[in-house]
């Protein structure tokens, strides 16, 4: 929550400073990037880049829209990164490193953790657009229209992406569990 400046003030014109805006939004943006990429280091890099980009346009961004701007920026950065081989390799490596993550979070033997882990792995396998829609809807708690704004897509695409993503997850979970029962 921004504590400095009023709704109409613009950063640099007496509104909150870049550092204040950064402090208010950075953690959320980094988390969003992490949920979309599955890679902590990459997420922080993208978060920094997003702030760098939006920060360079501070005079054109009202404080109340800074958060949506920087979130959309990080989504765009994620999309771009997924086109690059190096990032894809890092992404794959991050998924493979789940064992390490589970150990760090102390959940290795928890059944809840296994479910979360399975969901996390399946989420990362979804097409990016579906993953974006699900993260916006269920992590950021954005409405469908807010998600459409954040992702720069139509309301209909948000609905279909979310629906298809959930359907794909259900199908994948059922398939995984069927395999587990067979074994």
């Amino acid at each position, binding site marked *: 929550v921004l504590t400095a400046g009023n709704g109409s003030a613009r950063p640099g014109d007496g509104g909150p400073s870049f550092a204040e805006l950064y402090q208010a939004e950075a953690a959320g943006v980094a988390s969003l990037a992490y949920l979309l990429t599955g890679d902590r280091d990459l997420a922080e890099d993208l978060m920094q880049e997003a702030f760098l980009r939006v*920060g360079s346009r501070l005079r*054109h961004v009202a404080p109340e829209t800074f958060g949506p*701007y920087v979130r959309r920026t990080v989504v765009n950065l994620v*999309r771009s990164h*997924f086109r690059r*081989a190096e990032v894809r390799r890092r992404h794959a490596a991050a998924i493979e490193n789940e064992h390490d993550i589970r150990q760090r979070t102390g959940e290795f033997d928890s059944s809840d953790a296994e479910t*979360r882990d399975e969901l*996390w792995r399946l989420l990362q396998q979804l097409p990016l657009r579906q993953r974006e829609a699900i993260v916006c809807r269920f992590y950021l708690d954005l409405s469908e229209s807010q998600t459409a704004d954040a992702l720069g897509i139509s309301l209909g695409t948000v609905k279909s992406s979310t629906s298809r993503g959930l359907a794909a997850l259900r199908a994948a979970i059922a398939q995984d569990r069927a395999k587990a029962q067979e074994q």
Partner: protein
Amino acid sequence: MEELERELQAMLRHRASTMPSSYEASSELVGRTARRRMTKVTAVAGVFVIVVAAAVAGAIGAGATKHRTPFVISNPTTAPQSSSSSTTLPKRNVTTTTPPTSTPSTSSLAVQSLGCPTTSVFAPFAVAAPKVRPRDVDVPGLSSAERRLVRSYVGPRAGFSTDGAVEPDVVLGPKGWSCRVYRHNGGGAELYVFPPSAQDSFGAADAAWTTSEQYDGPEVRVDTAVLGHDPDAALACTVFASDPLVQHWVTSSPIGGQCAAPNGRRITGADGTYAFVDADGTRGVGVMRVRATTPTLDGDFSIVTCKLTGREAALCDAILSDYVTRYAGAPPVIDHVRARTGRGGVVALDGRIGLLHLSQSTEADVRSVAGAPNATAQASFEAGSSNATAALPDYRALGYDCTATATSVRIPLVVQPALRGPYCATIYFINVSTHTLAAFESTSPNYGTQNGTKVGMTPDGAQRREGHGLIPHGCLGSFIELGSLYAMGQPITTAAGIVIYVGPNAGDLVSSLATESNTNPVGMLFC
């Protein structure tokens, strides 16, 4: 909310909680943000200065000529031809043209030659005068007394530093005078030959750029510029306004505006060689050099202005005639765009890629210009594009100069959902929805921006040329961004965006040049 959705919510929040709960903006990030903001302001200011300078120049020109009577160009053979595509530019035959100012002569004379020091806006910023040998010239119609009054002045012609070589420009002038060349960012050059009394106007300091343009005394001046470099279109119009090639250039350029000679200037000539006389008696010639077989703006043009007084006034005929004899009809030495094969050219923010045009050219056009591709593929820049919800249209990639295995100078035809060869030096991306050219990337140094940035240049050189800073860890890697690729609510102002890639390793050179339509994208440069 269903069970799966609740589990998703819990999983996402748990995952997010493993990230740090707060971040402090480092001083480095704040500094980088401020510098980037400043870079944008500087770039805008640069454009503003250019616009103001052009306006001032126009006002000065209008003020100086407003009392003159207009003159209608009488040569009907140079009537403009309409054309709507960059692939239908009028061809020009390269033939030796009779100098419009005098008749050829075989009388030859060895004259002393003087090299001109050069000041540039790009490195090397100052080049000392080269030593040049005396040269033999034809000086038709000169008396023996007049012959003793001429000297040869030598400096660089227009050209981009990445052309690898700069062709010399040679012009006669009065003996005992000095000379200096100023080279512009866009490849243009101004060679001034001026009397000793005007030394103060032609120094090496920055201010001399301005004072030289305001200088109004006796001089021989040669303006050379690269054809197709849009900021120089207005200069070309001052002499070549009736030339079909220049007419086409101006009407197809994003600069737009009218192409007309200054009031009071009488122009004669055709086919790239013109002579003019101003109302105040100043005389000059214009010489355009275009490749014979290339239907494109590949070449350069020169405008020589001779403004002499006293006993030297009679030298203008010889000076102008010598220049026309030397350059008219000769093909340009430097191939600025290498468009003859279709495997090169200028990549511009208006969407031009050599002879092709983003959002206009079709696959057939690409094949017509660049030949049959070595490899093709259909894919998307978005993972899971087969899904009906995909926002990005599929592209059809046409690859040239391809190999089966990856190399550092080749780009994969397909990047999603995984990199896939063949790997090509140049790829054209056709939007399968619109069937038009949507994007392009090449690691070939045959392509360059309007400011002359090409693959193989140093990042510093590219930044200086483009007036844009390097984004060292941007979303596309390390790159220089031109145009409005990343508008974020800002109005898109250019037809295309251009990314000049550097790297991927520190110390690397410019590695590829990419451009994508802002109106017909496939997502190659989405960021």
